[in-house]
């Protein structure tokens, strides 16, 4: 090299003042953001709980009640059917959770070492982003007396010529709720587990141990249960608890699929809060406290189940038995998987059929007439809800992204992960039933700034969006090779330059993925939107739920489909982008081969 590359390196110009100020500002923002993140999650939840606690014990100044007492709880106990409400909430959540868990581990056990695992993952993945309300509507259409299942089985098997009166949906035992919840929980649990065990080190270890077990003569399913599952379960526990907590207090599923007399406790609480008789608020608040206890006891029951199972099976892990009817179970699981896929496909197909159906006579499996009028009229009315859904989702997701990225940057700069306390706080809005704190939160928000409906709704969505955005980005951010930042620092790049020009571009795909997830979570929120806006802000989801039990199944199908399409579009865009990136990478690799060939020729 003839010219001197470092001719002026001894008199490097001093840093400009502006640059220095920006650096100080950035480091202050980064230092502050974990605290802000925790505050944004914890304050509304605690404030909301307080706003429910006080009225529950009789303190409600708005109604001139300022004496503490237990009237709310007395009224609650005297409510007809309260025991059934509690039973419905408790058993529908624990049974659906258990079913989803069993199905997940059976699928994992049967397909652990097979290409079908990836296929099942690809099939169930999209279901994860289907909002609960839309999924409930699809299942209701499937199992109702005039639904797809009845149509396919009639009249050749059932002999029905017209829809018969049968139990489902809205059955008093909550079977429909359990079906709905299980079907939504299964993909969540499976995908969370798969993403946990996809960590390179763990994955290698698990696969090696599985092979060892196989080589020792263990049949595949037994090998999975004895050698792999004990190592995987710790990663399933937290998602499992989140599922149970959600199910015990969910509103959309029981509202669309559950019985009305009496409904689940969460639905009853919502009705009391919405009653024109304001004095019911005290009973509703007491109900919210009861709901907290039910959720807690569901989680405790799971913990007990876990410990008991562990105690019972711990010895049989090393008893040397190589098979427990593996070949039989393989067949059963294969058949079950097939049925499950049919069930899901039929549910979705049925909804598409209804949305285009003109005259559709029972028991024909296809509509007699195909029309687009339902779509036309729905699209005319749904514009404002779509705009609302999008704008709320974008605001909540952007705030969540910025906070998450800055917090993870703080972690990276300090070379340590968040404290245990903070990591637990991130799960808080997922663990505490929203029905238990949302009413208190609404009360607080009205006290602070009642007019800003949009901001209030967006900030409440943030509570539910933030945990998912954080969880989905944390892994990729923590896996980022730290040497890139070190090299950049060695090149003189300031922390803010490293953050913006090195870390963020490398995380482009995970960031896009997290944004799509955040949007999907925001789109699907029903209760927060309804309560915080007081019904003044309609989104696609609130419209779909309010139409679900209405007169027109066709309109309802269109709304549910639009509700599914919003997140689907977001995820398809990401998928297209990642495909483009992959193609570019492949192109670059091809160029690489040509380049090294040319170099060799030149030598």
């Amino acid at each position, binding site marked *: *090299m*003839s*010219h*001197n*590359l*470092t001719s*002026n*390196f*001894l008199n*490097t*110009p001093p*840093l400009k003042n502006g640059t220095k100020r920006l650096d100080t500002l950035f480091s202050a923002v980064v230092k502050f953001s974990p605290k802000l993140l925790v505050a944004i999650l914890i304050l509304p939840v605690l404030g909301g709980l307080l706003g429910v606690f006080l009225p529950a014990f009789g303190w409600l100044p708005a109604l001139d009640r300022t004496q503490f007492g237990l009237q709310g709880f007395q009224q609650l106990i005297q409510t007809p059917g309260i025991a059934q409400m509690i039973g419905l909430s408790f058993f529908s959540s624990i049974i659906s959770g258990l079913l989803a868990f069993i199905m997940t581990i059976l699928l994992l056990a049967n397909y652990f070492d097979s290409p079908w695992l990836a296929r099942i993952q690809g099939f169930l993945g999209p279901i994860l982003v289907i909002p609960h309300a839309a999924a409930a509507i699809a299942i209701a259409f499937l199992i109702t007396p005039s639904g797809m299942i009845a149509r396919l089985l009639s009249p050749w098997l059932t002999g029905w010529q017209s829809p018969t009166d049968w139990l489902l949906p809205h059955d008093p035992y909550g079977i429909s709720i359990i079906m709905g919840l299980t079907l939504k929980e299964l993909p969540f649990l499976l995908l969370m587990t798969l993403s946990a065990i996809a960590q390179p080190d763990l994955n290698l270890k698990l696969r090696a141990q599985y092979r060892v077990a196989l080589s020792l003569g263990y049949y595949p399913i037994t090998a999975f249960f004895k050698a792999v599952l004990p190592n995987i379960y710790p990663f399933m526990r937290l998602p499992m608890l989140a599922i149970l907590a959600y199910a015990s207090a969910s509103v959309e599923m029981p509202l669309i699929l559950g019985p009305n007399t009496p409904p689940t406790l969460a639905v009853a609480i919502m009705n009391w809060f919405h009653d024109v008789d304001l004095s019911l608020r005290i009973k509703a608040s007491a109900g919210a406290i009861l709901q907290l206890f039910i959720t807690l006891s569901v989680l405790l029951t799971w913990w007990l189940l876990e410990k008991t199972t562990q105690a019972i099976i711990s010895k049989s892990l090393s008893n040397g038995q190589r098979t427990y009817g593996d070949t039989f179970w393989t067949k059963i699981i294969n058949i079950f998987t097939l049925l499950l896929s049919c069930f899901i496909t039929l549910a979705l197909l049925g909804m598409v059929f209804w949305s285009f159906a003109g005259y559709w006579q029972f028991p024909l499996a296809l509509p007699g007439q195909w029309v687009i009028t339902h779509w036309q009229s729905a699209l005319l009315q749904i514009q404002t809800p779509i705009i609302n859904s999008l704008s709320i989702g974008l605001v909540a997701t952007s705030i969540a992204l910025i906070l998450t990225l800055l917090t993870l940057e703080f972690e990276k700069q*300090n*070379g*340590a992960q968040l404290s245990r306390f903070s990591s637990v706080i991130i799960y808080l809005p997922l663990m505490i039933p929203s029905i238990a704190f949302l009413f208190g939160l609404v009360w607080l928000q009205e006290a602070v700034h009642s007019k800003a409906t949009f901001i209030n709704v967006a900030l409440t969505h943030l509570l539910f969006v933030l945990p998912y955005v954080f969880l989905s980005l944390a892994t990729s951010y923590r896996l980022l*090779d730290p*040497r*890139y930042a*070190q*090299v*950049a*620092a*060695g*090149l*003189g*790049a*300031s*922390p803010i330059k*490293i953050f913006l*020009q*090195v870390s963020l*571009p*490398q995380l*482009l795909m995970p960031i896009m993925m997290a944004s799509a997830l955040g949007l999907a979570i925001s789109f699907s929120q029903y209760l927060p939107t309804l309560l915080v806006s007081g019904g003044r802000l309609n989104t696609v989801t609130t419209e779909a739920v309010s139409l679900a039990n209405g007169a027109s199944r066709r309109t309802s199908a269109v709304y549910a489909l639009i509700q599914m399409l919003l997140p689907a579009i977001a995820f398809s865009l990401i998928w297209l982008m990642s495909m483009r990136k992959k193609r*570019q*990478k492949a*192109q*670059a*690799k091809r*160029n*690489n081969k040509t*380049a*090294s060939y040319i*170099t060799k020729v030149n030598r």
Partner: protein
Amino acid sequence: MSHSFEINSLQIENLTIMRQQTPLLSLNETIKGGEVLTIMGPSGSGKSTLLSWLTGMLPKGFKADGQLYLNGANITKVASYQRNIGLLFQDALLFSHLSVAGNIAFAMPKSDNKARAIKISQALADVGLAGLENRQPESLSGGQQARVALLRVLLSQPKAILLDEPFSKLDSQLRQETRQLVFEQIRQHQLPVIMVTHDESDAIAANGKVFHLKTPQQDI
């Protein structure tokens, strides 16, 4: 104070790095411009910990005593990005979202873009990579990537360079060529260099002082 205020020098004065309470390593060395100090030792002996102290990125759980002087200025407490110490790893670590020229431009001080582009093209031509400005880093071979990484460090105008197993991923023919190029450039620029390696031939090629780190005492 004993340190001489030489222009181009990197001076490690009475360094002791502790892990929790146990001392991990001690070092007291001066590297003059154009010289290479080679650090050798088995894994776990603290090679990468030493490098992270030199760059001001000592991880939690470690404590360090001692001073670091670069060209006479005490930089022990200076932020890593203001130290002017460049790093080269065994992986080229080129930013895949930037082109070859973009990677080098990222490192250069801010100035007229045209002048920078000319400088980049000249530098690329000097190491046999003429015309590759707009290529994506992934489309280059391993040896080409290593050379771009070297240019990136040199054009950032560092005052010292740290090499962390810089050649261990290259095959032997390429390894010799790249090593020769790196040492040649470093001498030309009269930069003090610390190289961490476990390859004897790297140490010989560096032709400088070699410091051996001991195996860590095993806790019983």
